[in-house]
């Protein structure tokens, strides 16, 4: 990493304009993403081979006929040597073919593309709620300069990060679905305005943790920004309030939050598994669990791969955003 930064600094010294430095950095970051994506592929490929013994035998049970086991091995592509297996797997991925599900007669790609929108809606909605709640809270606490408020803020957020969200979800169901019937539990509809009726409660539960994490990071970076000299200059020059809040305080403080957010969106792919299973949402997490329980190897492999790739994409995009917000960020 250091060498990269040195090179960038050298090019900057030579008087090359900012645009080229930016393109150079994005290029380096992109190559790193590709390398990680490669390892994601390798890990998703290795998963099925980690099973003790033969996966085909394990799925069919010890009493299965040898012909059936052999046929399944062939279907899973396990009948050739490992290197060729990886090559076939990789070639399949490029063509968008991840094999056929063992429990349903459907392509894995098809399963993923019908289920993924639900999950992305849920994550997007949770993140949106969290951002709109976390930014005002963090701004308020950081600018209030009050020790007691900061103390209460830190304690409550520490607690709400530690709370198990599936338990909160059950309490939420107890209150909002059963007592007041505000959040229907069954019959998800995928079209836009109606689906919010099903998504608001799981998104809110996700947000309890997310708001705490985001506002903590934002709070500490805003406090750091407030100590910078340009903020003082801004105050002295009498910059108008909204402009002051955005350009002088928020914009320079957002970079760490954005990087964290891109990482958290990946982590949330994990927690949404639990949310989807509690709220019976037909998302990708529910598909993963059904696939895991029925030992549907190609589907598990495909979904794991997609999750990994989405995370790589998020973190690439997050780093770009952070750089756009604050050119001092190194990546």
């Amino acid at each position, binding site marked *: 990493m250091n060498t990269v930064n040195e090179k960038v600094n050298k090019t900057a010294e030579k008087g090359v304009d900012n645009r080229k430095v930016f393109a150079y950095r994005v290029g380096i970051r992109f190559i*790193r993403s590709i*390398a*990680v994506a*490669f*390892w*994601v592929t*390798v*890990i998703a490929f290795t*998963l*099925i081979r*980690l*099973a*003790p013994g033969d*996966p085909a035998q394990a799925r069919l049970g010890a009493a299965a006929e040898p012909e059936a086991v052999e046929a399944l091995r062939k279907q899973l592509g396990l009948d050739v040597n490992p290197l060729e297996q990886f090559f076939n797997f990789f070639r399949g991925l490029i063509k968008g073919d991840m094999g056929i599900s063992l429990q349903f007669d459907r392509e894995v790609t098809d399963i993923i593309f019908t289920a993924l929108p639900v999950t992305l809606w849920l994550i997007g909605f949770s993140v949106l709620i969290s951002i709109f709640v976390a930014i005002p809270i963090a701004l308020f606490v950081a600018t209030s300069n009050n020790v007691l408020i*900061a103390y209460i803020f*830190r*304690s409550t957020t*520490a*607690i709400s*990060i*530690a*709370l*198990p969200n*599936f*338990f909160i979800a*059950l309490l939420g*169901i*107890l209150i909002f679905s*059963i007592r007041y019937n505000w959040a229907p539990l069954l019959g998800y509809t995928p079209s836009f305005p109606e689906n919010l009726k099903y998504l608001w409660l799981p998104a809110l539960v996700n947000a309890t943790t997310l708001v705490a994490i985001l506002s903590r990071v934002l709070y*500490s970076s805003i406090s750091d920004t407030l100590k910078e000299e340009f903020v003082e200059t801004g105050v002295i020059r009498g910059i108008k309030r909204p402009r002051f809040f955005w350009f002088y305080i928020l914009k320079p403080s957002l970079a760490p939050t954005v990087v964290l957010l891109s990482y958290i969106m*990946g*982590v*949330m*792919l*994990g*927690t949404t*598994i*639990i949310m989807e*299973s509690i709220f019976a949402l037909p998302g990708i997490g529910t598909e*993963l*669990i059904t*696939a*895991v*329980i029925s*030992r*549907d*190897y190609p589907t*598990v*492999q495909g*979904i*794991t791969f997609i*999750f*990994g790739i989405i*995370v*790589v994409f998020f*973190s690439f995009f997050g780093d770009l955003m952070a750089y756009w917000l604050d050119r001092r960020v190194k990546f």
Partner: protein
Amino acid sequence: MSIKKFRRWLDEPGNSVIFTGFSMFVAIVLAGILVPLFYKYGPNDFVGMPFERPGGEFLFGTDQLGRDILSRTFHSVYRDLGVAFLGVSIPFVVGTFIGIILGLSKSKKIIAVISSVIDGINAFPLLILAVALIAFLGPGLGSVVIILALTNWARYARIARTKAVVVSQQNYIEAAYTLGYPRRRIIRKHVSPNVSSETIAYALSDFILVILLIAGLSFLGLAATPPTAEWGAMISEGRTYIINAPWITLFPGAALCWSAISLAFIVEGISRREGKV
């Protein structure tokens, strides 16, 4: 330590929070030791009528099969916290070690390959990787420990590596080399104490995540499965009856929250002590 000294210690910033968290944690661990030893009912004994309310003979009530919830809640402690402890300590040791080796290594090829493996593993959210691996290893608390050992080391390795690079450039390491100490001694006595202070801090917050992970997986029926007394599994069993018998879910849930919050307080107190606020 005399009471006066202890009071003075408590007055330092953050220490009161650490103390609160630590006492909460000790309380639940003690309950987890004492209840299995001395309590009259076992976790899987059918001792009363189903759905008896809390209070009376059964302090926490009974579940849908007439098992004592108090006994089940505290029998879970060593399973939840014990498995979480294993699931944190193995990756902690392995990851710190690999991170130190990487941080001190001179070979660029090895660094490039291993750190991209680490990035690759870290690219997967822990829960996703755990769920996917359970498909191949089969459900059970043992699988969870194996999965954590296989995957979670990468996070420790990344932190340890970053810190080891910084430490290895310090003057005292150079001094140790100049004195002619063998590499192994330098790693053991000079580098690893400084690196592990960083990874221990992460391990504490990771402990919370792993406790929640184990309970979450059991809730999905992928780690501990009924009739095992385990918080996540108990919550999952009780959710069908949550309208009429909420206590079946509430007590294990409260115990889970209690342990996670106690650790969160310790982490919070430590970060206040270090003045990171």
